[in-house]
């Protein structure tokens, strides 16, 4: 069993990819694999569907790292594997909302500003829905765990949305917002706005949205303005860690050519921000199993039901092979690992070890 180098090379492994392909489960399996190699691992997931908890055989995961080392040790030994003494295995699922508030709390010294901000209805929706809030908060957790020195391998499972990588553009977006010109339009009292077109645009906006909204929006903008310096500093630290050699990205996808476009987009985006791409994992493939033997095929011919299954499997395999070359091409021929399609869902650490051993 050879071990892919990213399990030793990087302190932080980010899994990034298309949704619905078992990325969360695979991230957990990667964490387990790294732990089996003796590393001190923590897996972070942002996933309201609680997939990680389910696949670890638990009801839920807390927002603090939960120590699963002994459970992993017991399950591994049931499969005849020894977990190295120095290894550890933790998992957590940060609660976005409380992390977000805590985050703002740390950034502002004025409790009046903070209270006003947290009560603002726009902030409340922002905290929940702002494209990328989940990602920012995952990154805050990542920094906290990294700084703790408790782990030497942190696996971050990014949410499977097309906005996943928005956080990389956040500094630019924030600079745009805090760019004196824009922010001053928003926070200056209306009578001081000199520029006619701006006045006109804001007037139109008010006409469209109503006065209450405008009031909330201006209050919100002022609140953000207060915390901007701290926010940018935090963000820059994270970006620095992500673009250093300490961090590697693993792309995860399903064996379907449709994903090629999205992967290529991820790749371009990641590379343009200086992140390092380590590997491509194609999950849930039939190609990870050996081809049907001639005995299998003979057996299938005698049974009409089975022959329909075999016909389906063969045509899916053919499609997979074609998809694979497109996926590889789209990701610049990264080292590729095929993971097998499973016969049933994952329900326990034992199950995850079976998957981890396939890596």
């Amino acid at each position, binding site marked *: 069993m050879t071990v892919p180098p990213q399990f030793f090379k990087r302190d932080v492994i980010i899994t990034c990819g298309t*949704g619905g*392909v078992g990325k969360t489960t695979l991230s957990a399996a990667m964490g387990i694999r790294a732990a089996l190699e003796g590393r001190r691992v923590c897996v972070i997931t942002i996933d309201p569907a609680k997939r990680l908890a*389910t696949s670890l055989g638990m*009801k839920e995961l807390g927002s603090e790292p939960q120590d699963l080392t002994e459970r992993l040790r017991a399950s591994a030994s049931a499969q005849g594997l020894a977990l190295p003494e120095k290894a550890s295995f933790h998992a957590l699922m940060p609660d976005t909302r409380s992390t977000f508030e805590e985050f703002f709390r740390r950034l502002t010294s004025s409790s009046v500003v903070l209270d006003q901000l947290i009560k603002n*209805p*726009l902030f409340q*929706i922002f905290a*929940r*829905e*702002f*494209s990328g809030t989940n990602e920012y908060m995952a990154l805050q957790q990542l920094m906290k765990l990294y700084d703790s020195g408790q782990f030497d391998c942190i696996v971050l499972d990014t949410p*499977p*949305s*097309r906005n996943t990588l928005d956080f990389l553009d956040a500094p630019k*977006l924030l600079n*745009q917002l805090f760019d004196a*010109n*824009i922010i001053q*339009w*928003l926070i200056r009292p209306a009578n001081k706005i000199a520029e006619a*077109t701006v006045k006109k*645009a804001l007037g*139109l906006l008010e*006409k*469209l*949205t*109503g*006065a*209450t*909204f405008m009031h*909330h*929006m201006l209050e919100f903008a002022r609140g953000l303005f207060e915390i901007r310096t701290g926010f940018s500093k935090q963000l820059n630290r994270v970006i620095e860690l992500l673009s250093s050699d300490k961090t590697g990205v693993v792309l995860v996808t399903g064996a*379907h050519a449709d994903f090629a*476009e*999205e992967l290529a*987009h991820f790749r371009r985006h990641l590379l343009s921000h200086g992140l390092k791409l380590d590997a491509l994992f194609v999950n849930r493939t*039939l190609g990870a*199993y*050996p081809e*049907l033997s001639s005995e299998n095929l003979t057996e299938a011919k005698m049974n009409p*039901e*089975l022959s*329909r*299954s*075999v016909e*389906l*499997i063969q*045509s*899916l395999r053919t*499609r997979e092979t074609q998809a694979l070359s497109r996926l590889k091409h789209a990701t610049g021929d990264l080292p590729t690992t095929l993971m*097998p*399609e*499973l*016969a*049933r*869902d*994952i*329900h326990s650490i034992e199950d995850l070890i*079976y*998957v981890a051993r396939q890596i």
Partner: protein
Amino acid sequence: MQTSTPQQTQCTPVAEILKRPVIFVSGKGGVGKTVVSQAIAQVFAQKGQRTLWVGFEDPTRKPGELLRIAKNLHYLNCEATTAFEEYMGLKLRIPGLAHLFTSNPVIKFLAKAGPGIHELVLLGKLWYERKNYDRIVADLPSTGYGLAMFQSIDNWAKMFQSGPLYKDAKAMIETFSSTREAGQLIVALPEEMPLQESLELGAYLQRIFPHNAPAYLINRRFPQLRAADSQETDPTRWSTPLAGNLLDFAQKRSLLEAHNSKIWNQAGVQYEDLDWELPGTAIQGVSAQLQKKGLL
């Protein structure tokens, strides 16, 4: 080892949902929403109904592009920036002014970073288009993002307490809540986690549209095989989640699907299912299956 059982949910029969003017096809990534939605749209068009099949922000197509793909059948690549300008043009009634407005950096920033504006605009476009077609079949983005679209209308109705945007958001909720006007079709795969998540999606949608229950369609069923006498039929008791080889996979897959169907039946979830179509002819195949089952 724990397995989750679905809670009692309200459902609408698939055939009932497919009678409605606007059909939202939703579900997790990779469950076949695009094929299913196109197959449905195609049947409507063949029956002579003017049909719009809507995709959202397909990066391989031009933003906002409208294509005629067959008789009575159009495809719209719904995209936020183009839809936003159109919408502002409608609201402000002066196209040039709309551009000035939408190119304003403050507005641009808000449209990009603001909570749900993007999603609201996409749904708004679809909402406007419904007047121009007999049928609209929307291929919604995968679960999280698709949900955000509906959540966004709700958010906006709460955020603005007056003004034209408020009125529009309200009217959209009303349209999409009405069982005469719109329906939700949730596509799932016959695996445990996807099934569970499709029920969670259904429950979420019902919080936004309490009187308009979704329908469930289970896609891509493997050919059913009889279990060998010695075979354990309860998948949760198999020692490993892996299959021994591809024939074993086919056998186990069939048992897994039977097991999951049983759980859904016991929980009283109504659903229809579709056999796995071979790649290449899937759209025609799904159209044919839906018609054969009398769902269209």
